[in-house]
């Protein structure tokens, strides 16, 4: 008898019955795993997040991230990491040492930098502008969210989904509204995975057939640029250093993200000189960071935090932010075309969204559908990469003014 009682006490059945939210979260975890595995939506993130959700929601496992209030002590101090691990287990140790400190997103950005090639952007620098226009979704949704009653910090975190950049969204949310980390990360990565659906949708709404047919190479032949890069290798080495200094002066609050991105890019461009560092940054460091980030983000999604009206707002708002950003890029191109003889295919502008390199690939495929000789991939990459910089800058503005 006592055995059965002990058995029952040890298992999680009692909580399972008293908290129906747990079962809903298990289903959500499985759906995320399904999206990551079967639908191949950013599996590197959604699989750890999904598994993290599953592990976090079963009481007794101690794998769910606890309310930050629980780690606060009196007079402005916090429990130390050893005490957090001792009291709340390894997942909170991971979360409070690597995520809540804002450490992992810049580390992942270092790896992203080591995998990024600024070449295509440097070859079509003018197109980089459209990476600015495509940040409008961030601020538009921020405005809308405040109307709907979100706090400015929450609204900023929601808007940043429109930046279409996972680490940036996560970093901003950690700084402004950490209690929304789970749904915002999920929304950011899911919509990035949905880029092949969202871009065609928005572009068909806003573009004419004639615009779809604008052939960038022909335009280049008609209006050739005098621009020529004689020593790309050296340009690519100087560029991240110079840009690092300039952005650090203009938007200091974006330095943790942009600085690490540019550092990663620099060690990559230096080739064999620093290949040990570039390999480490884009290999073991980034992969380890991805595992721990995914699991911890999943572990923040406990039923009591996730199953709220806000989450639905984030899902809808995030989608809008994405769509408006794409629209911003497209419309900016259209405005440009009004004033310029040399036309730009608005699909190129749409890539200002970022979501590198998927946005460019999708835009290229759409263009090819209209004209099978119209390869625009290389042109798309310019705003696509500058869009990453654009959203990191937007994040810096939000953090510096709202934190």
């Amino acid at each position, binding site marked *: 008898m006592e055995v059965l009682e002990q058995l029952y006490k040890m298992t999680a059945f009692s909580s399972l019955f008293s908290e129906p939210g747990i079962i809903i979260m298990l289903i959500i975890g499985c759906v995320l795993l399904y999206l990551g595995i079967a639908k191949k939506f950013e599996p590197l993130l959604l699989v750890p997040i999904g598994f993290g959700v599953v592990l976090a929601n079963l009481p007794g496992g101690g794998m769910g991230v606890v309310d930050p209030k629980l780690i606060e002590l009196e007079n402005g101090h916090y429990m130390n990491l050893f005490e957090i691990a001792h009291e709340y287990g390894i997942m909170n140790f991971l979360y409070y040492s690597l995520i809540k400190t804002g450490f992992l997103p810049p580390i992942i950005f270092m790896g992203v930098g080591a995998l990024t090639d600024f070449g295509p952007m*440097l070859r079509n620098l003018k197109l*980089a502008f459209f990476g600015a226009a495509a940040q409008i979704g961030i601020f538009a949704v921020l405005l809308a969210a*405040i109307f709907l009653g979100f706090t400015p910090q929450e609204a900023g975190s929601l808007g940043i989904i429109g930046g279409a950049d996972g680490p940036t969204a996560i970093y901003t949310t950690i700084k402004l509204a950490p209690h929304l980390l789970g749904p915002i990360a999920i929304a950011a990565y899911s919509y990035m995975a949905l880029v092949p659906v969202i871009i065609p949708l928005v572009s068909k709404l806003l573009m004419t057939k004639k615009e779809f047919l604008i052939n960038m190479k022909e335009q280049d032949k008609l209006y050739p640029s005098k621009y020529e890069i004689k020593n790309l290798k050296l340009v690519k080495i*100087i560029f991240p250093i110079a*840009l690092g200094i300039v952005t650090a002066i*203009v938007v200091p609050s974006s330095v943790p993200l942009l600085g690490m991105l540019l550092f990663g890019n620099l060690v990559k461009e230096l080739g*064999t000189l620093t290949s040990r560092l570039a390999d480490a940054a884009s290999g073991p460091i980034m992969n380890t960071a991805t595992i721990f980030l995914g699991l911890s983000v999943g572990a923040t999604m406990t039923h009591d935090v996730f199953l709220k009206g806000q989450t639905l707002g984030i899902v809808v708002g995030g989608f809008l932010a994405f769509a408006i950003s794409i629209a911003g890029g497209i419309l900016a191109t259209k405005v440009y075309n009004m004033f310029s003889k040399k036309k730009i295919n608005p699909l190129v502008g749409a890539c200002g969204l970022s979501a590198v390199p998927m946005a460019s690939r999708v835009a290229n495929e759409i263009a090819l559908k209209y004209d099978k000789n119209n390869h625009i991939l290389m042109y798309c990459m310019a705003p696509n990469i500058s869009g990453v910089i654009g959203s990191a800058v937007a994040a810096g503005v*939000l953090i510096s003014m709202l934190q």
Partner: protein
Amino acid sequence: MNENIELALLLLLVGMVTVFLVLILVYSLGNAIVRFVNRFFPEGEQAIVASQATGVNQKHLAVIAAAVATVTGGSGKVLKVEKES
């Protein structure tokens, strides 16, 4: 609430201005660097660019490189291969 909306509008303005500003800087910087490099270092420093224009068959090179990487556990790298003349 009203205050928040004002703040949101301010953010919209400051944010978009900053984003455009930075991307203008990206453009000007990029341009300036290209001009500077075109003018003073148009050739490319051989030291940095490890271009291997030697006569070694590229296929063989790949195989050698792969083998070396494995044998040395990744700590060795093939930096240069030259044909004995």
